[in-house]
């Protein structure tokens, strides 16, 4: 990362934990959130700071396995391990944790987490239709009431609207950075895109984060440099969330010569597709946009395919790699249909990679990644 705007962004985000602690000392409340279905706007409207808690580190898995089954997905184990060890500063700083009933492993883990942390569970429907939306809106309403009581605030339309505007500005800014990779060759590597999205999800000051991201989009957008040659195969990475610490497949693909141009997952591009309608009734706009998110826990999950088709063409992808965390049944089963769709409808080569956070299978994965890229030449 040689751009000065990126350096500045890194310097500021290096201080994320400190800044959060300072804000806390000044009386700001912190809301920890796991999945993409938890509305960031609700915390913002309550005057609190939302932070992302999904576990992306291998280190905490060992302690989690003292309680959770080893065969569980590493993301769930990593998240829970942090709670057991009390080793995640963001979780420690959270006054309350908001979680959704997404996959089975996660919701059962949240039951255990509730013994250690104050929590609010959003009961997520598994289908995206009108009755589900009504129900989901009610869930958001109860969350709103809960925040009002807990934080002693009143959340009205005005607060919701300004929270939506704030979150939208942040998303637009992050999107403009992630969209830089549409250029051929991409000015940013997949590792950089991943790291920027990861760091941005912990900045307590949302306007500041948006400013920094806007600067990156401006500076990098104006430069003609790229870490890749024009012939580097462009990979669209889809599937499970990836962050700093769980980035091994992104790194592996790029070490083997690919350019990961888009990460279609909860930790990266799915976040920025969540633009909320600022003119509609705020609660309805929030509930409907969030419920639309394509996670494999939805059944059926039609938006996954619609998004893939759009992203593959917008980012001019040469191939699709579907990442599945070992033990994740929903994404693992869905991979079969995604493969069919990618090969038959998008006419692109497809590879599923099933792995966990540990480096143990690096050599085996390397064979798959290299062979896949050889196939593209």
């Amino acid at each position: 990362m040689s751009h000065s705007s990126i350096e500045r962004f890194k310097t500021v985000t290096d201080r994320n934990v400190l800044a959060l602690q300072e804000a806390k000392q000044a009386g700001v409340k912190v809301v920890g959130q796991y999945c993409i279905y938890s509305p960031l706007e609700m915390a913002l409207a309550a005057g609190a700071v939302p932070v992302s808690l999904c576990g992306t580190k291998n280190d905490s898995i060992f302690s989690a396995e003292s309680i959770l089954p080893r065969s569980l997905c590493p993301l769930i184990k990593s998240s829970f391990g942090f709670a057991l060890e009390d080793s995640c500063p963001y979780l420690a700083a959270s006054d309350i944790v908001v979680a959704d009933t997404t996959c089975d492993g996660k919701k059962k883990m949240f039951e255990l987490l509730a013994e250690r942390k104050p929590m609010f569970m959003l009961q997520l429907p598994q289908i995206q239709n009108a009755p589900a939306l009504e129900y989901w809106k009610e869930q958001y309403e109860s969350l709103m009431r809960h925040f009002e009581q807990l934080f002693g605030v009143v959340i009205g339309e005005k607060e919701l609207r300004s929270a939506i505007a704030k979150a939208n500005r942040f998303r637009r800014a992050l999107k403009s950075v992630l969209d830089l990779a549409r250029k051929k060759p991409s000015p940013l590597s997949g590792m950089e895109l991943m790291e920027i999205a990861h760091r941005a999800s912990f900045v307590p000051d949302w306007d500041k984060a948006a400013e920094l991201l806007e600067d990156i989009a401006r500076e990098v957008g104006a430069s003609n440099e790229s870490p890749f040659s024009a012939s580097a195969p462009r990979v669209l990475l889809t599937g499970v969330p990836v962050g700093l610490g769980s980035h091994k497949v992104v790194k592996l693909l790029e070490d083997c010569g690919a350019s990961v141009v888009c990460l279609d997952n909860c930790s990266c591009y799915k976040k920025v597709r969540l633009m909320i309608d600022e003119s509609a009734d705020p609660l309805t706009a929030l509930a409907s946009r969030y419920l639309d998110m394509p996670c494999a826990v939805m059944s059926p999950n039609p938006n996954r395919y619609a998004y893939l088709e759009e992203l593959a063409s917008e980012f001019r992808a040469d191939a699709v790699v579907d990442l599945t965390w070992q033990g994740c049944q929903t994404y693992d089963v869905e991979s079969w249909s995604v493969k069919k769709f990618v090969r038959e409808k998008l006419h692109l080569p497809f590879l599923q990679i099933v792995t966990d956070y540990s480096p143990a299978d690096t050599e085996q994965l390397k064979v798959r990644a290299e062979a896949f890229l050889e196939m593209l030449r």
Partner: protein
Amino acid sequence: MPVAGVDVGSVAAKAVILNERTKAVLAHALVPTGWNPRQAGEDALNRACSLAGVERASLTRIVGTGYGRIALPFADKSVTEITCHALGAVHLFPRTGVVLDIGGQDSKAIAVDADGSVQDFVMNDKCAAGTGRFLQVLSGILGMDVRALDEAAACGKPAEISSMCAVFAETEIVGLLAQGAKPEDVAAGVFRSLARRMVSLSRRIACRGECTFTGGLASLPAFVRCLSSELGVAVNVAEQPQNTGALGAALIAAR
């Protein structure tokens, strides 16, 4: 001018020397990998050179493949075994549409085009289930080498083996033997479950055309019979099926 392909697998290192223009095989050699993949690759190449009667220095190009491909300092290029097996198999059997390979530590099913390029592939997951490793476990328990296992399996009635995990299967096999199961039935049972595993792996890719079986296990007649009966089609097997990867590497060197 001669070129070479060297395939360093987890069990054996293979080398094939080709005539660059005619693509005729001048010689091939195989040595056990042992603990030093670099040395094994070196030895296999030297042996193949002396069998072919060519000087190492006269090789215009050397391509390495297999899990030890990065450990070969003399290789001009390294290519994965997926790409090499596909090319080698189509060179030997031009109507190949699917290549199945059971290696020492992983198994693969590869869909190929008429020119030998890879269309799609799948590999077994992390553990040793469904790999050659599984047979090594069996041969350890029964005290028979792989050839003897094949002869035994040829006249056995397949015992039911439910676990494909190399570790659990060991317990299961020991248990079966303790209950008085005949070694040949156990061997036949292990063959069948290994073959079934391979069949389900291959069903994950779109299969058309002929099926070519590569790798060391393809030189076991009873296993080949078992695999083709589980697949429901005949499979092509080369004379030296374990050399297919090295042949593919040599073909790339000859390009």
